[in-house]
């Protein structure tokens, strides 16, 4: 383990700050971002380049195909991130990568790239949990200090709050995620994934609410029944916009309810919405409604950074490194199953 103290003064320029090259590679997105922090200035995202694997229409991510896509474009993506940041490898002090959770083959591509850079340029290698990174980037960008967080994406649907060294879970899905609900419905209707943006467009066209299964268990949600029923509606020739609208109204109301329950339970006064589905304006709107009732402040990750990106890995890499954590290459195997509540968070305190 290298701490900041033993490290400063190494490559030139580092006395003024630290610059991290972060690599995201958990699923469909291969992203590289360069972020710099100065002594006292706020972090600066110098570049954030993404290449997204596109599955065939009507199909989901094929892990092997996605990993081949990532391998093919990895080098040029790193080069472009450097170019956009007007930096060379000499300006980079640390390398971070998404160690998990995610699809094994995809994770391994990012990990191999990060290890190679780390070994060749003798830079500390920083492992980052993808879910925690989503949250921390959002907290940095929005200024939320001690929020209850709703993380909603293709891989996650979880309500979490930081207490005593960990992001602890106060609600989650018992089966599929809200991103999977939307994407899998989209595929059944013949669209390509991710379906989120098109889904919202269709939903906006309708005001015709059809009753669908609403499943809340304690603070947890379950979307599988809602998915099955929605597919059936579509097969029964209900209008696509009506089904999208009804899924949105039902599924998001479930999320709003579990968030509200968790908010009351943990007694925090900030709510932060994070993850790919955070881009949906109806979801934001409902959660604003919840916050208004409980006089909590509502924060939402800016749309451009809501999806998977290198910036989250780069930023959390910097935080992790400053807290004195790095990893030897021999201990840097990917962790496709790595829940966010297993991460010892050393850069936060309460």
């Amino acid at each position: 383990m290298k701490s900041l103290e033993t490290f400063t003064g190494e490559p030139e320029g580092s006395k003024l700050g630290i610059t991290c090259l972060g690599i995201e590679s958990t699923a469909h997105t291969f992203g590289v971002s360069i972020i710099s922090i100065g002594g006292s200035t706020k972090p600066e995202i110098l570049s954030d380049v993404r290449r997204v694997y596109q599955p065939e229409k009507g199909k989901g991510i094929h892990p092997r195909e996605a990993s081949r896509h990532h391998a093919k474009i990895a080098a040029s993506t790193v080069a472009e991130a450097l170019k956009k940041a007007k930096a060379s490898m000499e300006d980079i002090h640390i390398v971070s990568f998404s160690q998990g959770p995610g699809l094994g083959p995809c994770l391994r591509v990012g990990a191999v790239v990060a290890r190679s850079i780390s070994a060749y340029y003798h830079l500390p290698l920083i492992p980052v949990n993808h879910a925690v990174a989503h949250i921390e980037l959002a907290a940095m960008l929005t200024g939320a200090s001690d929020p209850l967080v709703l993380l909603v994406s293709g891989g996650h649907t979880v309500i979490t709050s930081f207490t005593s060294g960990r992001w602890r879970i106060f609600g989650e899905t018992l089966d599929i995620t809200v991103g999977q609900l939307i994407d899998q419905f989209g595929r059944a209707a013949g669209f390509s994934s991710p379906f989120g943006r098109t889904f919202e467009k269709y939903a906006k066209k309708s005001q015709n609410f059809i009753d669908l299964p609403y499943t809340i268990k304690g603070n947890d949600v379950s979307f599988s029944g809602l998915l099955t029923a929605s597919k059936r509606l579509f097969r029964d020739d209900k209008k696509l916009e009506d089904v999208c609208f009804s899924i949105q109204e039902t599924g998001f109301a479930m999320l709003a309810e579990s968030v509200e329950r968790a908010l009351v339970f943990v007694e925090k006064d900030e709510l932060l919405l994070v993850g790919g589905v955070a881009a949906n304006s109806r979801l934001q709107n409902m959660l604003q409604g919840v916050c208004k009732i409980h006089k909590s402040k509502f924060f939402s990750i800016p749309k451009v950074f809501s999806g998977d990106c290198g910036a989250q890995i780069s930023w959390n890499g910097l935080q992790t490194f400053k807290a004195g954590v790095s990893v030897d290459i021999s201990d840097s195997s990917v962790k496709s199953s790595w829940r966010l509540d297993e991460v010892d968070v050393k850069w936060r305190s309460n």
Partner: protein
Amino acid sequence: MEKQLKKGAEASLYQTEWFGKEAIRKVRVLKTFRQSALDIKLRESRTRREALFLREAKRVGVTTPLVYFVDVNKTEIIMQFIPGRRLKEIIDAYKENISLKWCREAGRYIARLHSGKIIHGDLTTSNFIISHNRLILIDFGLSFYSQRLEDKAIDIHLLNMMVQSAHYIYAEKIMHAVQMGYQEIVGESDSLSLLERMKVVELRGRYKRVE
């Protein structure tokens, strides 16, 4: 004059009087951020469920507040006022004997409900109240009838998740006490098969390591 006691997630509690007795008025308030058809359906069905299961729980030997009056149209219930502290607070001010004694009693309560084919549906340490040296269970808005092992397992899984997150320091002890209480009522073999099923439910969680 009515005084608002608490703004909960789905209901507001007011201190009131019911024919000279101190009472609580629990109102499930309109949520304008959701579809009105859905909103009304949820508030009405939960008011009905809560009224029903507050009574059904008594039938199987679980102490709950007395229901004085139910108005489904106004989605409100007037019930007995229970002075006391939530189990959550008893655990936070941890005194091992006392905290675990009540957790064990909570386990007995859950077992009696389950034996009576009742699933509480929202077990948290906030929903148990200790009053006059008695445990009282509240918040039956998500309760339903079932004797499926799966539903019982999820019921306790939800409690376990909240305990692991909110009371992580004592989580193992708390859940052990709950399990012991549960086992006292249903016997060892039923209690063990429930534990087995809980593990299955837990592994279904996202990114749970399959070992």
